[in-house]
């Protein structure tokens, strides 16, 4: 149990006692939460859906990757596939514009079943890759993700091949039409906040501490008596739940799903989001998603405005990713922490 005590003190650059650390950690989060709740009063539906909604949904899926990579040391590229499978499941079980495939079950049957299917897949993928070590995970999960991509591309009887599905409505329940922008935004915000809190909680619960132990030294954890493989697979299952919910919200937000939704490009983009944001803290996933969504929405115009070819968007993404990986391996979060630490030391220097 000594382990759990040292484990809870997460390595943050700023020193100080527990209370001030709690505040420095949580005051921004609480402020941000309040801002997001009040946001609809100040902005248009476009910002709400296309910017903030997408940020939160992609952030949730990236959060599941961040949980596995940051706390478990497993860079799983299969998370976008889990989300995609959940999205496809809810389309096939629920409603879409294709009555020949969709079963039109009510949402309270379809949504839990979709999550269940996706979590089963995510856990299975985890079981396959958790048996091998470290760097192999990235290869195996990338291969699994592309297997799913090609399956959706080639299969017409369930996944409707290249075309995918369109006109997938969000359900209507509790007298609210969740299709419209405002309720959907709050639904997404609620789910994102819940998964963010869940990840924070789990990271400090005994399971999360043990998981971080298996990341730092699997051999020693095995020797103490922890079942390393079981911890890893359980982590995959937990991450898959978040990714699956994110996938369903993605379909409701986007109103369509096609092989590209969980394609190889999307898989890699998700990794870029998580790494750019930073794997050290759950908020990194959302920061990365925000940067990505901003770039995706405005980069084309911005590039053209400064006289460059707007189609070179991917080069910008790739170069930005390279710069982050080369110069700040812990992402934007790391930059922020280093800046805080530098500010703290300089303040201490002047007061002395």
């Amino acid at each position, binding site marked *: 149990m000594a382990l759990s005590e040292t484990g809870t003190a997460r390595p943050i650059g700023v020193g100080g006692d527990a209370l001030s650390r709690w505040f420095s950690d949580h005051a921004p989060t609480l402020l941000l939460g309040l801002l997001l709740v009040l946001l609809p009063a100040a902005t248009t539906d476009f910002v709400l859906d296309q910017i903030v909604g997408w940020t939160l949904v992609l952030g949730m899926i990236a959060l599941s990757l961040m949980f596995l990579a940051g706390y478990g040391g497993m860079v799983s590229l299969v998370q976008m596939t889990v989300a995609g499978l959940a999205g496809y499941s809810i389309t096939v079980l629920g409603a879409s514009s294709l009555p020949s495939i969709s079963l039109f079950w009510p949402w309270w049957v379809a949504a839990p079943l979709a999550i269940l299917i996706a979590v089963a897949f995510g856990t299975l993928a985890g079981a396959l890759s958790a048996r091998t070590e470290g760097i192999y995970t990235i*290869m195996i999960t*990338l291969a*699994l993700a592309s*297997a799913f991509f090609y399956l959706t591309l*080639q299969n017409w009887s369930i996944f409707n091949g290249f075309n995918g599905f369109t006109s997938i409505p969000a359900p209507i329940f509790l007298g609210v039409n969740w299709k419209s922008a405002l309720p959907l935004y709050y639904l997404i915000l609620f789910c994102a906040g819940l998964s963010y809190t869940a990840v924070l909680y789990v990271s400090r619960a005994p399971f999360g501490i043990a998981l971080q132990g298996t990341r730092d030294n699997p051999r020693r954890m095995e020797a103490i008596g922890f079942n390393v493989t079981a911890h890893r697979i359980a982590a995959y299952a937990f991450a898959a739940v978040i990714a699956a919910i994110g996938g369903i919200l993605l379909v409701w937000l986007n109103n369509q799903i096609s092989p590209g939704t969980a394609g190889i490009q999307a898989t890699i983009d998700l990794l870029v989001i998580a790494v750019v944001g930073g794997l050290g803290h759950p908020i990194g996933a959302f920061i990365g998603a925000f940067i990505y969504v901003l770039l995706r929405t405005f980069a084309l115009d911005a590039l053209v405005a400064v006289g460059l*070819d707007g189609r070179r968007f991917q080069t910008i993404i*790739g170069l930005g990713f390279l710069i982050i990986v080369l110069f700040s391996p812990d992402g934007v979060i790391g930059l922020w922490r280093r800046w805080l630490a530098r500010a703290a030391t300089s303040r201490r220097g002047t007061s002395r």
Partner: protein
Amino acid sequence: MATALGDESTAGGGTPRGDALSRWINHRPLAALLLAIIVIFCLWLILAPWPQAFEEWFGRKRLFINALFNGITLGGLYFLVAAGFTLIFGLMRNVNLAHGSLYLFGGYMGYEAGVWSNSWLLSYIVAFICCALVGAAMQILIFRRMEGQDLRQTLVTLGLSIVFADLMVWVWGGNAIQIDTPDYLTGPVPTPIIVALKPSGDAIFLQYPRVRLVIFAAAVLIGIGMWLALHRTRIGVMIRAGVDDRDMLSVLGYRVQLLFALVFAFGAGLAGMAGIVGGTFQSISLGEDSHFLLASLVVVIVGGMGSIPGAALGALIIGLSEQFGLVYFQNYATVATFVIMVVVLALRPQGLLGRR
């Protein structure tokens, strides 16, 4: 292939090959019998004309033989790509996710060189040198600075692959490019394999594109050459020692960094040459980079990571499964490949010929 099996059987006790085989037969008579029956059945499938009833049930023999030949030659191409990938991974623990980009880059450079010089063979040399230079530059400028950080290196290769892919679209556009086969290699070659019988009783023999056979032979030669270089030369010994324990190798005073750069350059160059082969077999276009990156990933996972014979075996299996999948279950052709990978992972996580 022969090297792959040879490696496995001699690994046991260092006894001569024939001796090991007879001992294995004595040990497992049933398995040996089963294996013999399977081999004889496969030989019959390939060599004999099929009876009418069998063709009705299984499909035309022409289809089967074509899938077999296409699968084997495609396996040769996959081997060329995956051999460099597995060598780089085995020695440097670097999962080079930009390997597919190197393949595509080699294909484009080879195409340009071919258009410019009108020589197919010269284009190989140009592609090899260009990709080798890029590979060496990657190793010397970037990966040397982050040695031992496997994950960071992999992320860097991923970022590079995104940038490379976009830059190549910029230069060469999104259209598919086909590399012309030189005149002396065009046309079919008659083979002694019977595809069907004419009503008169005369046999129809298989005609197969000459260029595919030549390229496959070249891939086999390169494979054997690599095996010989790894097992018979001083630098090969250094590479094998580095795969086993690179820290110890550098402690012993060998110039590991030079070795790393050489191996990276060689692997990248092979991928570049494979790009021309791919452009001749099929075509090179946007998206082929991730296709071949995935192919080499799967080949290496199935065959065993860091093992050259494993890459050969894996490439053969994946090439065959893709082509047979195309003929016998179109809807799931690519998925069949991945099913093989999952089965191998579940039963033998280190790959068929991999070591723990």
